[in-house]
Each structure stands twice: as C-alpha cells, then as structure tokens.
C-alpha cells in the first residue's frame, strides 16, 4: 500500500439533502395531506413504510416537513424516519422534475459507459443523483436495468427510451427540452397577452 497514491473521493451524494425547500403554501398542502394519510393508520412504527409509501404516492416525493410530521405522530426521532427513507431506493426526497432522466446503471449499461452518461447529466444540470434542478424542470435518477441492454447505455427520458447515449446525445436531449420550454414560455406569453 505504501508509496501508492490513493485516490480519495469525497462522498456528497446530494440526493438525500433537501436542496429544494417547499414554499409556505406548499408546506400547508403537504401537512394537510400527511395529516389525512396519518388518519388512516395506527401511528405505530411497523406502519412507517406503508405510510411513507402513501405520502410519496400522493406527493410524488417525501418532503422533509412530511417526515417530521410523521415522526412527531409516532413519537420517534425524525432522523429515524430519514434513515428509513434513505435506506430504500423507492423513496425520493426531492420533488420530481417536470422531466425525469433515469440513467441505467445495470451491468450492461454500466459496462459501456452508463456512468459517463450519468456524469454528463450531472455536469450539464449541475445536480447530483436523486436531485432536481432549482427550477424543478429536470430531475436525475439512476435505475437498474430497464430491459433493453442491446442498446446500452440506456437513459429513460420521461417515458421514452433513449439508446446508445453518449455525452453528445445528452447535450442533444437537453437541447431539445430547452427548445420546447422556450416555445412553451413564448406561447404562454402570447396567451397571457390575448387574455388581457
């Protein structure tokens, strides 16, 4: 070991940090939903997973305030709810973006550069795995095998499969969306004017 320069890497996976704070308005809605869901369950630790699943079904993710509410109802530390939510891949802690990129990291995709595709998305969007961009337009996730290994590396863009995704293709995918959003925003502007 001596004499070998070790490559240390810092682990800051941002997926389980609450990057996006819900607005006061959103918070109220979240708390209402959570209260309603909690009403249907005995506030017992053994029901924690199904409760979290219900909340995620309803809200699309597990907001921090929701976890805190649940913890209070169960009389357990919030960090225990957090621990469970970060243990299972099925839970997400940040709201899904309008468009979701799921980069496949199954064996076949990984071997031919799934991680390169992932890195390209990370760099271009300036977010980490499991994160959502501040404007909530895009979110990034890893998945494990979507079943079309022959066109690896695969990225699922919303519900569309993209095969053989190179960094250039990542740029292309993002560019297409930026175009679309631009048009939509333009349209919105026009409609607004017409409405007045």
């Amino acid at each position, binding site marked *: *070991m001596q004499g070998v320069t*070790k*490559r*240390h*890497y*810092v*682990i*800051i*996976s941002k997926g*389980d*940090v*609450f990057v996006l704070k819900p607005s006061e308005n959103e918070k109220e809605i979240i708390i209402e939903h959570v209260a309603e869901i909690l009403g249907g369950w005995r506030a017992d630790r053994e029901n924690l997973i199904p409760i979290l699943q219900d909340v995620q079904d309803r809200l699309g993710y597990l907001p*921090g305030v929701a*976890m*805190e509410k649940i913890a209070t109802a169960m009389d*357990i*530390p*919030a*960090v*225990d709810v*957090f*621990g469970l939510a*970060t*243990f*299972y891949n099925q839970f997400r802690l940040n709201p899904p973006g309008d468009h979701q990129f799921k980069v496949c990291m199954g064996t076949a995709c990984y071997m031919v550069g799934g991680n390169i595709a992932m890195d390209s998305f990370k760099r271009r969007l300036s977010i980490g795995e499991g994160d959502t961009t501040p404007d909530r337009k895009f979110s990034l996730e890893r998945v494990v095998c979507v079943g079309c290994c022959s066109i690896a590396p695969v990225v699922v863009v919303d519900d569309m499969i993209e095969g053989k995704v190179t960094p250039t293709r990542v740029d292309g995918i993002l560019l297409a969306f930026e175009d679309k959003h631009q048009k939509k925003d333009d349209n919105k502007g026009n409609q607004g004017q017409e409405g007045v």
Partner: protein
Amino acid sequence: MSKTITLTIDDRKVTAPEGEKLLWVALENDIYIPNLCAIKEEGRPSASCRLCFVHVEGLPAPVTSCTQAVREGMVVKTRTPQVDRLVRTAFELLLSDHRLKCSTCPQNRSCELQKIARARGLKLKLKRFKSLGKEYPLYESPGLFTFDRSRCVLCGRCVWVDHEVAKVGAIGFARRGLKRMVTTFGNIDLDASSCTECGLCVKACPVGALNFTGEQSSEKDG
C-alpha cells in the same frame, strides 16, 4: 428471578445468570472477546460488527457471542481456527472502510480497533482488501468535538446513547451498504440539528470518529 448456571469458557468454569448474553459473561470474567457494536442495555443486539464470534460445543458453526444466551453446561471456546478466520475477515473488512492513520488519530492508543488487533494478533494494515478510500469532510462542533466519518466503524454506540440516554434523537443511521453513515435529519451539520452537545456520543465512540477537542480532549480515555 433467573437462576445461576455454570458454563465453561476456554476451559474455565464460570457462573452467570441464566440467559445472560455470552459476550458479557466472558468480559465480566476477564475473558476478552472482540466487540464493537454490542451495548449491554440494548434489548436486541444489532450484531453488526461480526467480531464477537465464538465456538459453542454442539453448534455447527461459530455464533456471535453478543446474541448467544448462556445456559447450564455450555462449553465455549473463544478461539478456534474457524472463529479466528471469521474475526480476521470481519476486522479486515472494517479496516478497508476506515482511514487508517493511527499516528495522526486522536484516539491513538485508546482505540478499540487497536485493542482488538493486539488481542488477536491482527495487523492494522490492509493486505488482502483494498481501501475504499472514502473521505468525508470533517465536522467540527463549535468548541466541543469533531466528527470524522472516515474513521467511523458504524458500531451504532453513538446513536444508541443519543436515543436512549440523552433522549435527543439528533443522530441516526442513513443510506445503505457502503454509503451507510451516521448523520442528522436531512444530513445537515450537527450544530444546525437538535444536537445539544451533551458529548455522550463522543464518550461512547470506541474509535477515532468522534473526538473531544480542547480541554475535554482527554476525557474519552478509559
């Protein structure tokens, strides 16, 4: 009332209350068995460090002594080739996810890993496994302690005292597998969490992950 039973550990007859966990019986009789994750008061041991293996006569494979209840006439060996091998592998795996640099570690000389190494003739060096080389940013609390995750062995002692003794609930485990770590709600810094800086977790840490700074820095020993 539990009755007192007699068992044999390494050819020595010892008495203990029936049902007591073997690890504590051995330790109380000055028979050392490596352990990191065991907490005596804990009802259900997590048995996660896999260091406390022993051989119990009549059982097909070594068992973890922190989960094994003692009974009358039990015959235990703390060292057999099979036991030693399991302990060595568990130890090496722990070290592969540990920033091994005892000379710069605040816990040098009062570290539980060093104690295990000494007791079992194991090296504090990696040979078979590669180091994962994980580096986490060092956390420094305002004036009281530091938390170096790169040296955490995930024994859970700090989480237990935080929950059960201090009754604060500021820290817990998050994530899974190699990414598992002790953290706060939302991975925020401890000083922004509900941590009261009582220092109990620092005292509970068997290795150089949680350390007092400044005046209290010698308080952890012993």
